């Protein structure tokens, strides 16, 4: 089995009207065995910037810790939070540093620019950035996720509709993947609030 499908994961980020949503599954497994159903894959960097990491679980945790560290230092020096594009470049650079011995994770970065417009991007495991206007996906169920998002996505959705769309896309995709699923978590972020909901999904 490939190292990136050792633990299993599924992540989506979608752009809405002056908001974005980022969602992931909650399973932590060791190949086919499920170990936990409350594994955190989406992390807050600051109020309007979230990063989701798919792939090998240990690298998910280490990458988050290193990114949190770098952002805190940036904050101390610059006396402000990082902009999403800058953060995406930071992620890309940190991943390429390990070009010949990479972290086996594929991050999704989602944030709001200062003017309130949403920003999403994903990178591969060695830092190739891919910006997107509509949605980005990552994880072992990525092919299913692409199909689901492509058919369900509509531009300029309000936060509530965006939540419905991203949840349905996530649940229907992980139901076709043996090693991801077991529940879901969705964060819908607008300029003034963050709504976090857990999804009741199939636990098989």
């Amino acid at each position, binding site marked *: 089995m490939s190292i990136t499908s050792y633990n299993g994961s599924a992540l989506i980020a979608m752009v809405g009207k002056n908001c974005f949503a980022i969602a992931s599954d909650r399973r932590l497994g060791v190949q*086919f065995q499920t170990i936990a159903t409350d594994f955190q894959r989406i992390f807050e960097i600051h109020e309007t910037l979230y990063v989701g990491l798919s792939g090998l679980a240990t690298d998910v945790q280490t990458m988050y810790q290193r990114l949190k560290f770098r952002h805190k230092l940036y904050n101390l020096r610059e006396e402000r939070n990082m902009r999403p594009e800058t953060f995406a470049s930071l992620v890309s650079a940190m991943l390429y540093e390990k070009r010949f011995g990479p972290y086996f994770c594929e991050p999704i970065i989602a944030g709001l620019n200062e003017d309130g417009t949403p920003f999403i991007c994903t990178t591969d495991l060695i830092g190739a950035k891919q910006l997107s206007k509509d949605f980005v996906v990552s994880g072992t169920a990525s092919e299913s996720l692409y199909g689901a998002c492509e058919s369900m996505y509509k531009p300029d959705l309000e936060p509530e509709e965006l939540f419905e769309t991203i949840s349905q896309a996530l649940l229907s995709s992980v139901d*076709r993947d043996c*090693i991801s699923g077991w529940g879901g978590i969705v964060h819908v972020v607008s300029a003034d609030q963050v709504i976090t909901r857990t999804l009741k999904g199939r636990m*098989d």
Partner: protein
Amino acid sequence: MLDLRVLEPCSLQSSLAACADSQVLGTAPPTFKLPAVADLDGFQKAAVQMVKPAKGTTTLAFVFKHGVIVAADSRASMGNYISSQTVKKILEINRYLLGTMAGGAADCQFWQRNLGTRCRLHELANKRRISVAGASKLLANTLYSYRGMGLSMGTMIAGWDESGPGLYYVDSEGGRVEGKRFSVGSGSTYAYGVLDTGFRFDMTVDEAVELARRAIYHATFRDGASGGVASVYYVGPQGFKKMSGDDVGELHYKYYPVPEATVEAEMEDVTTS
């Protein structure tokens, strides 16, 4: 030119096959052409490898006071992809004999249907129903003669005959074991845990059905390659009966309901007058 007659099933069946009526009667063993490749061994190895990951499943069966319970999940997986959530893994060989499917779906379906045919012929020839021991032996002998050719089956034959309930485990390596409790597949270890803890020989039929359902549910929760619907069958003196077929997604919330979030009462300001 290689002499490949050694690969054909045993000689008694070959002589039966020689009889002109045997193809019509069905006593002749099915004849399979071998692939016309230069490297037969290599081809067979590749064929075995192709079917190998397919034992992603959970099936179980146990004998108790009132008969035999047989249960299974319904997921088919190809690597990490779920190809189906609605596979029938408990095959009805005849009214009082059930077989389970683990391994190659085609192998299980074909050979268990073949077994049903031969059991019926036994009834007609001997004017009495075949025993579970006899039926499982017929299957085991057939599988033994195809040993090494890449069949993949881990099946349990369960039924009721004149000597009471019977349960045998038969696999494609040619093994056949009698037993009182079996679980087969990638989720079997999880099912064993629940089954072994909750088992009592003198359970009622309903208690036994619930134990089997729970065991399959727990296996689908922990094992990624098991899921879908938990089917439970009961085999008693009157033959088999399908007792339940529950979607494990719904079973989870039935066994572990999500507690209602308590809304804290807000303190209201007391007006002073």
